[in-house]
């Protein structure tokens, strides 16, 4: 059974209502289904609850999610936590407010709650918001800056053992002797070890690895994009509006191919989990984005009853999508079968994380457009080749996590898939927001994979928007038009036009000189979320430097404007890092092999929010594609070179110059 990308939270409103607890100490505990990933969701949800209930913000406590008591709101992903989780919470709080009024009780704390709640109370109109829309400071940051326990990595349970994995892609052929003082756990090719002291586990894992042998595995093809193109098994039309007459008006045709490599999530803290078996019952602490999906998968692989597995969420380092969090949790759970009831803390190493996390998939995008004699686009073809962008646990009838395929009785693992349109996966943002008369967008799905991929911030949106917005500049130049005016001439959507105009207006002070360039990229995230336009300024010297990014964003009503700005700034910087530097290849083991943007290289980022009272949508992912295209377009402005393969390293730029 495929679970939908996000279950409708409104259907959870009644259950959620029962999960708002008025505690005896005068606080309100809220069991939210969305988890804190460093995006500040706990603070924003507390703002929504405080406003709708009409209680002080300081009284609201958002509980860490747990399958033991939280509503199942699916995965915390896709910039949907405010849009969906916030909506469900607001509805629940509106119910409570209506019940309070009707009951005549003095306060929520005196309210006798009936079991059944009607679920039709009106919510406060936006004009009455007092706390939503303000810059409430993040409630979790003081503890983090003080160095207090904040992450699953910091969890200490009595009698806890430390574990490390000894993993390889091949089948285990020979397991070395167990180093003294540690307990080696083997189940098929799944090998880990347990030690009293963490440093001993680390040393022992190195020794055991050196003495063990695995079968060879096929090499990853050198040209992954050609491989993808030759392995598509489904060709789905995402959008078609054939207009032969318009197409026939085309007098100039442009075609181009754009390439996106595998990109690592690259969390600063490698994945970690703690697990403890009590007889046939299992408790897991994890920084997963989906506690229920993880529970389902663990129960399936370990052949436990789902109700005998509890998954508690504790924070991890920022993940930006599906990293090793779920894999390490299953690993820890499997290891905990051998610890005689003692809790097992498994920390993946840096090398593990780079070697085993599911990367953001490589993509090939081929575009083909025709201009009429007036320089307008009359026909547009978009073809994309990619593996699925979602490989999250607990969604299919087969498991997906690494260990499921490694144990003695292995499971066949389900392939990565794509969420359906309009949000889409590989095809996210493949349908252009522009008005083109003759249009055909096709997704070529590749089921087999040579490198495991899953969701990375914005999914296919990064590759598709990079391609579309680069190509828009190419077409504008071919038509002899200004790229900004060219876009506006093809775009009716007023909110889309507004972010372009704002980003351009705010970056007018740019002064062009030799080696300097400016470029624009724009998109409406998922074709239904935030509008974002980014103007990039670059200096092309020995290497390409991004000096400034100006983003104009419309997320509807921002629940916490500074929180939104923080997400946009971070998204711009991370996208700049992907665009300039990042391409995962087999053998990447540490940060020296996988450089990311550093303090000395980070551009200035200016964020301008176009505030309105429209429904709030997520902010975390909308900048990714526009930033990439803006940088590539700025590079073209600086040097007259069109780079269509990411990342824009000195080697790639040199190749493009010499092409």
């Amino acid at each position: 059974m495929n679970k939908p990308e996000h279950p409708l939270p409104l259907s959870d409103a009644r259950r959620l209502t029962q999960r708002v607890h008025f505690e005896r100490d005068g606080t309100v505990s809220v069991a939210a289904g969305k988890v804190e990933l460093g995006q500040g969701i706990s603070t924003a949800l507390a703002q929504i609850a405080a406003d709708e209930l009409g209680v002080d913000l300081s009284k609201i406590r958002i509980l860490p999610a747990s399958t033991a008591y939280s509503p199942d709101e699916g995965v915390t992903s896709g910039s949907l936590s405010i849009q969906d989780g916030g909506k469900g919470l607001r509805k629940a709080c509106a119910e409570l407010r209506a019940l309070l009024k009707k009951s005549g009780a003095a306060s929520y704390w005196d309210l006798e709650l009936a079991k059944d709640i009607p679920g039709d109370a009106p919510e406060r109109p936006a004009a009455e918001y007092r706390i939503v829309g303000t810059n409430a400071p993040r409630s979790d940051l003081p503890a983090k800056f003080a160095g207090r326990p904040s992450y699953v990595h910091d969890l200490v349970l009595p009698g806890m053992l430390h574990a490390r994995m000894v993993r390889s892609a091949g089948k285990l052929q020979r397991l070395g002797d167990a180093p003294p003082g540690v307990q080696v756990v083997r189940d098929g090719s799944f090998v880990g070890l347990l030690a009293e002291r963490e440093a001993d586990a680390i040393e022992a894992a190195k020794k055991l690895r050196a003495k063990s042998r695995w079968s060879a595995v096929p090499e990853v093809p050198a040209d992954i994009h050609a491989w993808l193109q030759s392995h598509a098994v489904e060709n789905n039309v995402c959008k078609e509006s054939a207009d032969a007459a318009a197409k026939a008006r085309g007098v100039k045709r442009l075609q181009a191919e754009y390439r996106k490599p595998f990109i690592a999530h690259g969390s600063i803290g490698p994945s970690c989990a703690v697990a403890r078996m009590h007889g046939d019952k299992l408790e897991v602490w994890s920084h997963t984005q989906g506690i229920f999906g993880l529970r389902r998968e663990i129960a399936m692989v370990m052949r436990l009853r789902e109700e005998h597995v509890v998954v508690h969420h504790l924070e991890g380092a920022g993940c930006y999508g599906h990293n090793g969090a779920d894999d390490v949790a299953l690993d820890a759970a499997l290891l905990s079968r051998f610890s005689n009831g003692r809790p097992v803390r498994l920390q993946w190493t840096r090398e593990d994380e780079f070697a085993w996390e599911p990367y953001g998939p490589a993509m090939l995008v081929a575009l083909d457009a025709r201009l009429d004699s007036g320089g307008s686009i009359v026909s547009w073809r978009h073809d994309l080749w990619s593996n699925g962008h979602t490989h999250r646990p607990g969604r299919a009838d087969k498991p997906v996590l690494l260990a499921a395929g490694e144990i003695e009785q292995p499971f066949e693992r389900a392939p990565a898939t794509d969420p359906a349109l309009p949000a889409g996966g590989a095809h996210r943002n493949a349908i252009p927001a522009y008005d083109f008369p003759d249009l055909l967008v096709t997704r070529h799905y590749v089921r087999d994979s040579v490198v495991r991929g899953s969701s990375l911030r914005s999914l296919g949106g990064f590759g598709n928007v990079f391609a579309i917005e680069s190509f828009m500049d190419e077409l504008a130049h071919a038509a002899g038009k200004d790229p900004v005016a060219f876009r506006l001439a093809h775009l009716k959507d007023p909110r889309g036009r507004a972010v372009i105009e704002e980003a351009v207006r705010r970056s007018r002070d740019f002064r062009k000189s030799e080696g300097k360039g400016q470029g624009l990229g724009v998109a409406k995230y998922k074709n239904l979320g935030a509008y974002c336009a980014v103007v990039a300024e670059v200096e092309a010297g020995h290497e390409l430097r991004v000096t400034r990014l100006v983003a104009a964003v419309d997320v509807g009503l921002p629940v916490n404007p500074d929180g939104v700005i923080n997400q946009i700034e971070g998204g711009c910087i991370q996208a700049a890092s992907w665009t300039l530097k990042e391409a995962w290849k087999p053998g990447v083991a540490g940060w020296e092999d996988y450089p990311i943007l550093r303090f000395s290289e980070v551009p200035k980022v200016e964020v301008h929010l176009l505030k309105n009272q429209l429904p709030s949508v997520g902010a975390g992912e909308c900048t990714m594609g526009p930033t990439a295209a803006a940088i590539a377009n700025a590079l073209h402005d600086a040097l007259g070179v069109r780079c269509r393969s990411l990342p824009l390293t000195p080697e790639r730029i040199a190749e493009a110059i010499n092409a």
Partner: protein
Amino acid sequence: MKFTLNGKAAEVKSDGDTPLLYVLRNELGLVGSRFGCGSGQCGACFVLLDGKPIASCDLPLWSVEGKKVTTIEGLGKEGELHPVQKALIAEQAAQCGYCMSGIAVAAVALLNANSRPTEEEIRSALDKNLCRCGSHNRVIKAVMRAAHE
């Protein structure tokens, strides 16, 4: 093994080759220094060793004998956070925060050596610290703020 930890005498019995990070986190209960890479490439585990920022993940315990170690937990005085920590909160200079104790430690070392750093000097001083969330510019503003308080 004896050393000074956050201003107080500390003595641990661990093997001298144990990296300091695991001694801090698992034996002394100071979990504010985070594991990031185990090879000094990311800065998440930075501590001050005699006032200089250094990765604790590959620093053997024997090498700190008789020296002064300061962790994120020991930056402040008398229960108050250090001005750098306060400024980081004021600027809301984090998303996940995992890298931030190492960054705060490096920033304190910078301000101890240079009380009025330029933006370029701040960027340079923090260049060994990786941040994946993209909070760099807020951190720079926070260090500037702390320098002027």
